């Protein structure tokens, strides 16, 4: 089956990506998953300076999910460009770089330096982590405001080569995610990554205090899947032509198919990598089987199918056999 998937001007080998922050630098995942056979590997969010992140404990197990408050730890842009990106390039990995910043200015600077770097060859997309706190808005995340999210997207779009997709990764913790999505699309986003984690809290029964040092954390994993599907569905309904990378608790090919029919063009695997680092190949194989079982020739055939009215007749839009007139 031809699994190739287009995001803007870029064609990925298949619709399966890793989600930001779940695959380490790539090196840690590589013994378990052939990164070169992914649609793309998404990096942890790269910030300008090295960041130690938050103290432990920074991950808590919750029912069918994980809660994390990492504090965006990372080596910073210099080390990323010098070490991590060349390693990925050397292993023929298509890379989506997740970028973060505490101001529009920082986002623009990082994107600009990324674009100018000689190591930029394997970059097939830049994901804008607008869930970062905005230092110029009392720490409120950019993703909470259509204007702030749009400002960041516009700044990154302006710094990155036209052919490289800019994807805004949106938070579900908003009143109306479609409004934020529209603002990002208007600001030049090639597509969207839906969704980032949803804010939650876990209590440690031994201490009767919050389990995480950061108190609240981001919920990910299958517990989040219905929320993610709803967001993908809503945004696709509002902007059908905008590519969406859907993700949130994808653990099987069937989960991936659900995201496609809800309106996603591609699918990301995140928390599942922590539980089963070899999952991507299995999920891709299962997705291919699930598509074939429904008579679909490519992932694109499934995109948005859930939006058809109930009266639309058969489940699958098959190419009609042309009946020749015999004489």
């Amino acid at each position, binding site marked *: 089956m031809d699994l190739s998937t287009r995001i803007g001007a870029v064609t990925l080998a298949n619709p399966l990506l890793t989600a930001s922050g779940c695959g380490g630098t790539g090196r840690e995942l590589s013994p378990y998953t052939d990164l070169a056979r992914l649609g793309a590997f998404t990096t942890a969010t790269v910030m300008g300076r090295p960041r130690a*992140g938050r103290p*432990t404990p920074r991950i808590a197990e919750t029912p069918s999910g*994980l809660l994390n408050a*990492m504090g965006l*730890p990372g080596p910073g842009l*210099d080390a990323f460009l010098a070490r991590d990106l060349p390693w990925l390039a050397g292993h023929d990995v298509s890379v989506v770089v997740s970028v973060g910043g505490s101001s529009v200015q920082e986002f623009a600077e990082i994107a600009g330096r990324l674009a100018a770097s000689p190591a930029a060859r394997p970059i097939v997309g830049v994901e804008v982590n607008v869930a970062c706190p905005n230092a110029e808005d009392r720490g409120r995340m950019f993703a909470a405001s259509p204007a702030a999210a749009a400002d960041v997207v516009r700044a990154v779009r302006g710094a990155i080569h036209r052919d490289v997709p800019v994807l805004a990764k949106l938070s579900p913790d908003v009143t109306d995610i479609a409004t934020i999505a529209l603002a990002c699309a208007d600001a030049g986003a090639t597509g969207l990554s839906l969704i980032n984690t949803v804010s939650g809290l876990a209590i440690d029964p031994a201490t009767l205090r919050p389990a995480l*040092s950061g108190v609240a954390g981001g919920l990910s994993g299958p517990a989040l899947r219905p929320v993610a599907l709803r967001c993908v569905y809503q945004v696709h309904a509002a902007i059908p032509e905008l590519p969406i990378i859907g993700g949130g608790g994808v653990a099987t090919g069937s989960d991936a198919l659900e995201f496609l029919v809800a309106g996603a063009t591609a699918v990301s695997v995140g928390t599942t990598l922590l539980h089963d680092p070899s999952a991507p190949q299995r999920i891709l194989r299962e997705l291919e089987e699930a598509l074939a079982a429904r008579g679909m020739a490519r992932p694109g055939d499934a995109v948005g199918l859930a939006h058809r009215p109930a009266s639309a007749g058969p489940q699958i839009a098959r190419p009609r056999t042309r009946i020749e007139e015999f004489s």
Partner: protein
Amino acid sequence: MTVVAPAVAERFRPGQFVAVAVGGEHTSLLARRCLPVYEVKPDYGGTVEFVFSADDPGSRWLASRRSRDALDLIGPLGRPFPLPRDPAACLLIGGAHGSSGLFALADALRQRDCKVHFVLAAPHAHQVYGALSAQRIGDSSTVITRDGSLGTAGMLPDLLPGIIDRTEADVIYAAGPTGLLSAVSGIASALGIPCQVSLGELLGETGACGIGVCASCVLPVIGDDGHTRMVRACVEGPVLRGERIRWNDLGTIPLDALGGPRAPQTALEAAP
């Protein structure tokens, strides 16, 4: 618990751990349990034995597995215990069931003609793990319980300097609760004795993946260049040099750690 896992057994080196998925195929428990390996044996092509306490739903599920059940297990993982090049007197200090990780090390040291002295410490007799094995394979073995229910009554930090003297230890290896490791490291570095500690317990409490992708098990460690970095217990550890760990800063980000609020403003490589 013993599992047949030839590929793990074949590659295993003392000090390494396995990361076990718990709860079965449709589990709602997503974090892997990181468990130090007690022993590997050649039977059935290679078996791996690990010790754990069944104190949460995940480990209780694991404890209820029966013979011939399949387990999803990754290993061997992490940095093993470095071994002395020449025969040396080695003191192996285990706290509670954390000592389970020391017996494979004892065998490896024995093969290098090292002297192996055991110290097993726990609050009460029933928490001491491996007293008989320690007696069997150790050149000496000392059991310390807080209440004297087994072996000597007392606290390890009070008794350790005497034991170091008596065994003329050249090297110290320790595994167990973080508090014990901290005390042992302090005494060892005061006496100038190299000390390798296994952070199995910290890893068990904070680890979620075991392979280094989640960075949930970080702790502040001083590198060769004198700078502190947050390193992962699962990849850069679980065995680390005791004197390099900033024990008093565990559970925090020291202000001067790389990427911390007051990190030195030098161009630093992020990882050693």
